[in-house]
């Protein structure tokens, strides 16, 4: 008679451990819980932050365990008894399921192909149907087993906490599948579980903590950087690890601490870091000098933003200062004249409080126009008001404005722009023109103006619909100058 409890083969675990370093404890716990003669519970919850190896380890372990019986030859005496043991698994990725129903269909489909079901599968659009379908599938599977052999099915729900359009009873219902269907273990992979989110007591949780610096460096040492140093592989590895440590300390410590992002940052910076060595100006042995020579690399946190366009060799990642200025130059130059003016008007409408409009834009008040708040001195001595005014309007971000107000501001600054910039050109009548409306609609399509409120509430050009400007001060100042308007003159603060 086979023993009721036996741990999985050490060889399997060892190979897993070497490919997933620093996850020893998690692999062991999971293997104990999942292996067929281990201590199988009905539900297991794996939780931890992004890029901590939850899904990868689960997948690898399950693959190793389900092909287990053939590998147990090393453990000679148990071969006979375990030969008939049968562990199968199915993994359902919530990220690929568009709706709750899609998840159920995927689950049934995955299970059917895992157990080798040949007959048709019925539609499955509710949780109770899922239970029935799964029951049918497992019955077909377990009916042809031999006596004494154990059968177990592991169903993995990857990222189930981020399922789109999930019915509210989804998680508790899935947790109870094991009650209805024998020999089923459900594994839930989640980021951060709420307490008792399955509404089911006594579920084993395995935590995958984020890697520490030492662990990250250990994992990083497994990666081979692409241009090797001339000194050889050993030196390369040495410099690579020290370089990884420097990157962690300067850049990744504060943001992007997960192993994937630090690895990609390291790989991106590496060719530039060792460029002096390859050119022969520095030696790899003098690491601190190399570090000093490449000081700017570690001060530029622009690399933390994942770039989506390949860096061309002629145009390396621009410095932060040029990044700030050059970013929007294109738009300002490319937009037509009135669109630019409208953009400026929208910015003013977003950042000026409506009550100062009279000061800034009324013709009668033109003589009194003043910077910094104009003439509307608020009554002093009211603590609430002064306290409120201390927060700069710019820091509060763009406020929503009514389209009609923006149009009014547009016409006010248009005259100014005409006076300054269009001295030679004839004045065009823009009031009520369809071209202006078209320009507004175009700006809204480009999302330089963002509609506030429900997407379908009211027409784009309805006088009452509200907008917010989506470009910043730097851009608007440039755009305003290109049409001959000094935007500062009109800003309240």
């Amino acid at each position: 008679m086979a023993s009721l409890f036996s741990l999985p083969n050490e060889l399997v675990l060892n190979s897993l451990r070497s490919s997933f370093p620093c996850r020893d404890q998690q692999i062991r716990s999971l293997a104990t819980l999942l292996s067929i003669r281990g201590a199988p519970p009905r539900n297991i919850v794996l939780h931890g932050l992004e890029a901590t190896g939850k899904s990868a380890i689960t997948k690898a372990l399950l693959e190793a365990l389900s092909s287990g019986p053939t590998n147990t030859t090393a453990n000679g005496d148990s071969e006979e008894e375990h030969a008939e043991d049968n562990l199968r698994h199915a993994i359902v990725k919530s990220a690929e399921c568009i709706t709750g129903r899609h998840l159920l269909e995927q689950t049934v489909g995955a299970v059917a192909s895992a157990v080798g079901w040949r007959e048709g599968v019925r539609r499955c659009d509710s949780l109770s149907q899922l239970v029935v379908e799964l029951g049918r599938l497992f019955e077909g599977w377990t009916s042809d087993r031999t006596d004494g052999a154990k059968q177990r099915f592991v169903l993995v729900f990857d990222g189930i906490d981020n399922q789109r359009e999930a019915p509210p009873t989804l998680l508790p219902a899935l947790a109870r599948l094991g009650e209805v269907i024998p020999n089923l273990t459900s594994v839930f992979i989640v980021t951060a579980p709420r307490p008792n989110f399955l509404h089911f007591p006594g579920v084993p949780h395995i935590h995958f903590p984020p890697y520490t610096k030492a662990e990250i460096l250990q994992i990083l040492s497994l990666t081979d950087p692409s241009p090797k140093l001339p000194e050889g592989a050993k030196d390369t590895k040495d410099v690579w690890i020290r370089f990884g440590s420097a990157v962690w300390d300067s850049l990744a410590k504060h943001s992007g601490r997960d192993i994937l992002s630090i690895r990609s940052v390291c790989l991106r910076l590496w060719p530039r870091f060792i460029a002096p060595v390859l050119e022969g100006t520095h030696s790899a042995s003098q690491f601190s000098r190399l570090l000093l020579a490449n000081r700017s690399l570690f001060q530029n946190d622009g690399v933390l933003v994942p770039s989506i366009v390949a860096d061309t060799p002629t145009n390396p990642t621009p410095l932060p200062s040029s990044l700030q200025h050059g970013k929007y130059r294109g738009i300002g130059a490319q937009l037509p004249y009135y669109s630019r003016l409208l953009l400026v008007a929208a910015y003013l409408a977003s950042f000026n409080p409506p009550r100062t409009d009279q000061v800034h834009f009324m013709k009668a008040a033109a003589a009194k126009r003043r910077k910094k708040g104009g003439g509307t001195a608020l009554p002093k001595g009211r603590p609430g008001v002064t306290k409120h005014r201390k927060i700069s309007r710019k820091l509060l971000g763009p406020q929503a404005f009514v389209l009609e107000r923006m149009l009014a501001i547009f016409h006010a600054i248009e005259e100014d722009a005409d006076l300054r910039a269009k001295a030679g050109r004839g004045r065009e009548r823009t009031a009520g023109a369809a071209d202006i409306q078209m320009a507004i609609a175009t700006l809204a399509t480009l999302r330089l103006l963002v509609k506030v409120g429900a997407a379908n509430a009211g027409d784009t050009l309805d006088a009452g619909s509200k907008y917010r400007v989506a470009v910043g001060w730097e851009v608007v100042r440039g755009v305003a100058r290109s049409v001959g308007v000094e935007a500062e003159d009109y800003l309240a603060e």
Partner: protein
Amino acid sequence: MSVNGETSSITGFDASDHQPAFIFTPSAIEGAPERPAKRRRVGRTSAPDPTKHAQAFRFERLLNGLEDTECVGLREELFKRHWAKTEERIQSILGESNEDTLTKVTSFVQDVAPTEGSGIVPTGFIVTGPNIASQGLLFEQLSERLKTEVNGPVVTLRSGDAANLKAALKQLIRDATNQRAVNEDEGEGFFERDGRKLLNYDLEILHGFVKLHGSKRAIVAFQDSEAFDPGLLGDLIALFSSWMNRIPFVLLFGIATSIDLFRERLPRAATKCLFGAQFDVEQTSSVFESVFLKVIAGSEAPLRLGPALVSSLIERQHNHVQSIQAFISALKYAYMCHFYANPLSVLSDNERDSKSLLKLLQSEHLEAIRMLPSFIKLVENSVEKHEVTLARGLLEDDKVLLREVEKALDSATQRVITILRTMHVLSSAATGPVEKIDLYVRAFKGSLSDSDTVRAVLDSIKRMAPDALIAFIGRITKAVENGSPELDLEGWLGEETEFLKEITDIQGEVTSLVEEAVETGKPVRSQYAIHSQGLRTTVIAQKVQLSYEKSTLSKQDIKYTALIDRMSNLLKEYFTFEHPQDLFLNEVWLYDSLSPYKEVFTPGSRLAIEQSLSAPYHYLPGCKDTGDAFSSSKPATAILYQMYLESGSLINVSDIWTAFFSIVGGEESEGYDERTALMLFYRGLADLKLLGMVKPSRKKVDHLAKSVWKGL
């Protein structure tokens, strides 16, 4: 009293709302039960035949209906022929302009190798500039090209198609799977999996399709990426990235603003999954210029636009829209107007000779010719030249007129080509870059000789050293020899004799001067060059220096100065030509009418509504302008609008009713009773609401909020 309770919504409004009763018109013969239309798109629905529509539309007979039907037909035929040719030319330019981008993107799609297991989706970012209208053409061409050259489905998604994730995926899958005709034996196997019918938004279907056809790439293009909801885009990208190990996705994004702005809007998780290359599309302005030069300025253009219209078109391009498509439709409209409304446009048929054209002309045509401004100019000129008999003959004798018309028609093309050649010579003679459109406008205004470009060229000659002058003349001869492919001008070396002979003469003399100078070792300079040098070099002893320089003008220098003067005069003469709009019968081939364009392409919709509400007597016959803003003869809506203008931002409905009734009602005999007045009041308010001017306010009970101000 408020309109809050009214359930009138704008969406439900249609023409039948004002009918007293609903009239049922059965669409088919009774008894034949019609099949309900299929909800999914079944191939291409039978599009309305465009030819059928065109046949219903015919050109009108002009000249008070006296025009010959043959002429009418000819005008229509001319329009179709000319426009077809022009459009073909435009399309070929547009196609070429995108060619570069298309090739690059196609090779990117073919060559890109997805990195295994990283989940990074290879992506092409096509930066098109803010000209959204041209994105459609580009992506159409792109998808055509990719379909032929890449093995795999190509799907273009627009923001309108994709309201949410499910809809976007449905569209994607449907478009992808419709791209291959399904063979009988293959069946639509990919819609099912293990006997289970897949949901229509399941990418498993696409996976099956890709596997079945062995596709190497699955290309998804987002035409207007900015208009997509960033959250939706993020979801889609994450989904694609998760499927990367099974479906070889390649994404293409059409970006109107900039890549950085686009990246900032996307969620971080999505940007991590994207990596690729950027492609820049040729800028609208350069495409615009080449289209302009080819179809308006080009020597083969059947119809030319006048300077006023062109500058108005250009200004609109600069101020409002930047799209080729708008320009093309304006151009087409100009062609239509010309051939539709101008009876003399028959004369612009370049396939017949002038003799057979003249046979077509009726006496009404001749009468029309006598009304032309260019005819008046012709007669005035001949009177000034004391050719009174000719002037009289033109006015009275049809034969004389016909002879003159024939002469004008025969010379018209040559004259225009002369202008174009002059433009070309000028632009190649100029040292800096030249605004060619501006040049065209100036040339057709007849003010080319006054333009800055000409002045700059003439000034630059005066300061030229002999070598530079030789090179300059060389440039001009080369321009004459080669012609201009932009303008469809061929070289005209054989035709131009006098001007060319003169300048080659000058060139030869300058060369001999230079040779002499080399022998003597003294450089040759013109008087003007020395003068300017003197000014530049000396600051303190300016006078002394100048007189010194002048006194040492050598013989060669004087000779050279004379040559330069000759050259300058020659060019000045060459760049001066007759005002094209003074040429007799220029109306036949030159269209310069601004008002049809303005009316059609720059409507002032809001302005028109405001105008009609505040001054209805301009539009309604029964309404008189009494000078009183609140005259009771105005329609109810106009009266209410006037009150609306004078009220604050919140309007008390009861107050406005009282005011309205005091105008409309009253004890006089013509006043309405209260019930009728109330009905008018309701209708007026409903109209204002329909126009989006008032809406119920939540701030105060029984108040309306004013949402539109006049004159914005």
